[in-house]
């Protein structure tokens, strides 16, 4: 946007400059929602056995202004009904000693800051990268975001992961115990950050 003026025809730039100076500070305005107690669960169903686990300590931050969302949880935080299953999950499959966290970084489409100023339910799509077991995979997900009257934001997303995509090795002997596609459910109760 380079407009060429002759020197004596330059408009008064001062208001524009003042606006430019102020603009960065408006970008820093807080329109972020966060939680430390998000719930992520996964379910694997096979004829031999079902495997289910839940993690109640997922951390997530959502910036409504830019649509950026980040998500992190400790693999050791997944609780199983059988403690031996939990030990095997961490020791043998996810190798949580080497890769302790699962991280998702993405962008939410279909919602703006203005949408969140009033209560309502919105369908959104999230495009981003999930990194776990040291492998990053691009995911395109569909979810819902629900703003209630009290200002609490509930986000929900259901998707499917394949263990092979994340280089999780499953011995042939037990391959039938673990589903090819694992159903993952994410439920977050986000609160506005101060």
């Amino acid at each position, binding site marked *: 946007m380079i407009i060429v003026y002759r020197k004596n025809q330059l408009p008064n*730039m001062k208001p524009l*400059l003042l606006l*430019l100076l102020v*603009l960065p500070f408006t970008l820093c305005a807080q329109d*972020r929602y966060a939680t430390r107690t998000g719930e992520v669960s996964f379910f694997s169903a096979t004829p031999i056995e079902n495997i289910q686990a839940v993690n109640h300590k997922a951390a997530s*931050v959502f910036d409504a202004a830019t649509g950026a969302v*980040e998500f992190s949880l400790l693999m050791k935080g997944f609780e199983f009904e059988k403690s031996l299953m939990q030990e095997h999950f*961490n020791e043998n499959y996810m*190798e949580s000693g080497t890769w302790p966290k699962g991280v998702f970084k993405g962008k939410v489409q279909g919602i703006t800051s203005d949408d969140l100023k009033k209560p309502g339910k919105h369908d959104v799509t999230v495009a981003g990268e999930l990194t776990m077991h040291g492998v990053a995979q691009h995911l395109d997900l569909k979810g819902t975001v629900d703003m209630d009257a009290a200002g609490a934001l509930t986000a929900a997303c259901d998707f499917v992961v394949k263990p092979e995509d994340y280089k999780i090795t499953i011995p042939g002997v037990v391959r039938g115990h673990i589903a090819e596609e694992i159903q993952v459910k994410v439920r977050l109760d986000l609160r506005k950050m101060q």
Partner: protein
Amino acid sequence: MTKLLITIALCLVAFATRAQDDLLNLLGKDSTVEYTNASFKTTRVINGHSLESTAPGVLDVRINHRFGLISSGAVNAFGLDGPATIRIGFDYGISSRLMVGIGRSNFQKTVDGLVKYKVLRQCDQGCRMPLTLAVVASMSVNTQREQDLPWYSADRTDFYTNRISYNFQAIIGRKFSESISFQIMPGLVHRNLVSTESDKNDLLNIGGAGRCKLTKRLAINAEYFYVLPDQGARSQYQNSLSVGFDIETGGHVFQMFFTNSTGMFERSYIAETTNDFFKGDILYGFNISRVFTIHDPKKRAREKEEGGKKQ
């Protein structure tokens, strides 16, 4: 002047957009407490206790078997023909710190019971504890018929307490990495009745045990118990040494090893081992551990929480 203002404005815009990249850092440090787990694959190294204890609500069925001496030669199939000693035991986890167990060995028809408590737990995150400290107290009772007891004599009163021995042990250990864990076990074995005047009822000992994980499911273990010197006439006794592998499958842990101790309770393997490992008096043995989840304490806690929420 205008050029300077434009530059400053653009720099501030650039700064503001970059500051939004790492959103999660805004949440601050995660302070949830994560205790170290799986330092050893199971609650015993080979004969002795490891710093692990059975998870709450879980029953661990343990079957221990020792064959005969390898030095008994080919005609005895290098010990496979026996005589064999076995122990069948059940360990139960009461809480994440407390475990109890009971077992019976055919060696001297001994029934034993134990309590193990984790005083300190090594922490990965959220607290500062570099090692695990567990304490074990166990008691073993010889249940042979009176006439079969080694000290039986018709003209002597035998007290039931003569059959009882105790073991008190502290286990101090650390998981150094995903593959290496090590622990030391200072302890005291108390025998209510000993053979001669020169034998001591109380024997101080110190053990050391370690494991090295070779693959995700295979580990090599070694364990040694050293009875401190100058504790009575012990020339015929040896210190217990065992070396072996742990193989873990879905629900079982198989431990296969060579040891010089016949018995599987503390009085026997710490205080009364007679075989010399380095002279070939070695026994091949295996332990099988199978865990069953009896009840899930987290499920109970969650159901309570959900019940509270609904109200």
